[in-house]
């Protein structure tokens, strides 16, 4: 990969002491050192034209492996951290992998037949390297949140970086931080922007508390921070959220409801707050910067940045030079329709002059034949001032098949959660709000107050159905 001389990458180096306490320190690498060195255990020439699977424990070594092998390898397969080991043989066969890059030790994956294991460090050692690109490398990414066999999606550096305008119109070298993992589409976007734009990037670590991550971001004078609405809801629960004052704060990967946008605005009064639509298959489609949920109806149709949005059967369709090319394997399932559009599976609804995201087509709860998107109920619950976040799901029921149930995390500054009377009152108030706004079948049959909600490795709330 060319033009990466200015970027610095840093991540937390975390581990555990013998007594169980976690330690963390900041590890940083200057990508300019790659012009006279390498992080790989073998000469780069040995990877030319090969199909390379990158499977690392650490984001920093994955980032180095990607930067080094783009243009060199024929195909790069980027494993997300939660890829199930049992699926590796399927991945290796489907993508025809012949080299595995790991940071865990040479014997980590030598049980896989027919692959050679190469290691990648988190540091760059001096080495003579010839980085002349030879291939338009295929980048294979995995879609998030699927069950069963993983879905592999084919991109190129061109589709991953195609016509990206400076984020939020803020040009110049920027300092990024992201809650996303760079081994998934969302995080990879940020990594590539930072590397190609000559900026720096502060990576998060799953073992690190949001407060510690934001403290590192502050030390690095980060100007641009990105994450999912779930990441942000958690971060805003911490007083450390106010320690940073980004110029640009972006949410994507889940529906950004008005409540979280308002919370972002009040936490970061001087920032450009944007919510963006992007997915592994559809690429980056658009961002919205008017502090309002949803997007203007005028976004539909072709636009000057080369993105064409359409709504068909109530779901958003995207055609652009940033969409993925096709699936790898997957029984010949088509990624693009006959007109070149990706069906995002995200259901939208027009109200006035805006479209609003109402949920995933596959995530519908069926209550006695009536359909409900969990996200529309969550948006109502989240409007209660005492609520930080919520998860609505189907609960099996002998009468209607399912009823709606909600789990709710209260805001830290709301009333004492230990006081059962107060909790009961809050539950009643939330239900009252739902009854006032939603038809009866969408009102939760039960509400459970919980300390936290499961957020998956992709940074999205882990939904049990859909």
């Amino acid at each position, binding site marked *: 990969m060319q033009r990466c001389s200015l970027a610095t990458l840093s991540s937390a180096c975390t581990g555990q002491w013998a007594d169980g306490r976690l330690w963390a320190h900041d590890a940083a690498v200057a990508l300019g050192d790659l012009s006279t060195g390498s992080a790989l255990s073998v000469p780069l020439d040995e990877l030319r034209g090969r199909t390379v699977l990158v499977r690392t424990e650490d984001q920093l070594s994955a980032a180095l492996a990607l930067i080094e092998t783009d243009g060199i390898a024929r195909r790069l397969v980027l494993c997300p951290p939660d890829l199930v080991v049992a699926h590796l043989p399927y991945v290796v066969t489907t993508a025809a992998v012949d080299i595995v890059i790991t940071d865990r030790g040479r014997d980590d994956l030598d049980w896989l037949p027919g692959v050679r294991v190469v290691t990648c460090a988190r540091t760059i050692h001096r080495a003579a390297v010839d980085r002349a690109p030879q291939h338009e490398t295929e980048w294979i990414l995995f879609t998030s949140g699927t069950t069963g066999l993983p879905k592999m999606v084919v991109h190129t550096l061109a589709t991953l970086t195609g016509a990206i305008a400076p984020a939020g119109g803020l040009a110049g070298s920027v300092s990024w931080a992201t809650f996303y993992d760079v081994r998934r589409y969302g995080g990879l976007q940020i990594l590539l922007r930072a590397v190609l734009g000559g900026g720096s990037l502060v990576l998060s670590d799953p073992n690190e508390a949001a407060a510690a991550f934001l403290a590192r971001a502050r030390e690095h004078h980060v100007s641009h921070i990105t994450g999912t609405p779930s990441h942000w809801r958690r971060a805003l629960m911490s007083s450390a959220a106010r320690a940073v004052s980004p110029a640009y704060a972006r949410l994507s990967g889940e529906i950004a409801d008005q409540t979280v946008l308002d919370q972002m605005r009040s936490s970061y009064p001087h920032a450009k707050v944007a919510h963006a639509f992007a997915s592994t298959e559809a690429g980056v489609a658009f961002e919205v910067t008017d502090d309002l949920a949803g997007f203007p109806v005028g976004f539909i149709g072709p636009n000057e940045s080369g993105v064409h949005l359409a709504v068909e059967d109530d779901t958003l369709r995207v055609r652009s030079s940033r969409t993925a090319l096709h699936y790898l394997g997957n029984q010949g399932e088509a990624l693009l329709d006959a007109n070149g559009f990706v069906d995002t599976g995200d259901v939208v609804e027009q109200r006035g002059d805006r479209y609003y995201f109402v949920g995933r087509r596959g995530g519908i709860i069926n209550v006695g034949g009536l359909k409900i998107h969990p996200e529309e109920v969550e948006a109502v619950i989240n409007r209660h001032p005492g609520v930080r976040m919520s998860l609505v799901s189907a609960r099996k*029921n002998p*009468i*209607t098949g399912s*009823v709606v149930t909600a789990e709710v995390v209260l805001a830290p500054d709301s009333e004492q959660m230990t006081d059962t009377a107060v909790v009961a009152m809050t539950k009643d108030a939330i239900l009252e709000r739902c*009854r006032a706004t939603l038809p009866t079948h969408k009102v939760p049959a*039960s509400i459970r107050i919980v300390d936290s909600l499961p957020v998956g490795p992709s940074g999205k709330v882990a939904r049990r159905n859909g």
Partner: protein
Amino acid sequence: MSEGMIRTTIITHFEQVAAEQNHKLAALTDDRPLMESGLDSLAFAIVVARLEDSLGVDPFNASTTGDFPVTFGDFVQMYEKMQPNTAPNAAM
């Protein structure tokens, strides 16, 4: 929990859901057909969900007989049978 308390809990939930959804509840006598209790199927579904929360049992799910209760009395009995201390074989 005694049988009387189970009945009281059930009646409380019927009344509460009826009030929430503006349904007029009929007198809950044992021979009252559930279809005529005044609750529609959604309200009834919610009662069953909340009873599972307060009594810790879902007799519909556990039911081996498969008979759907017809009257309010059948319904109450179904929950009473689920209680370990009142089940017929509890003494064995």
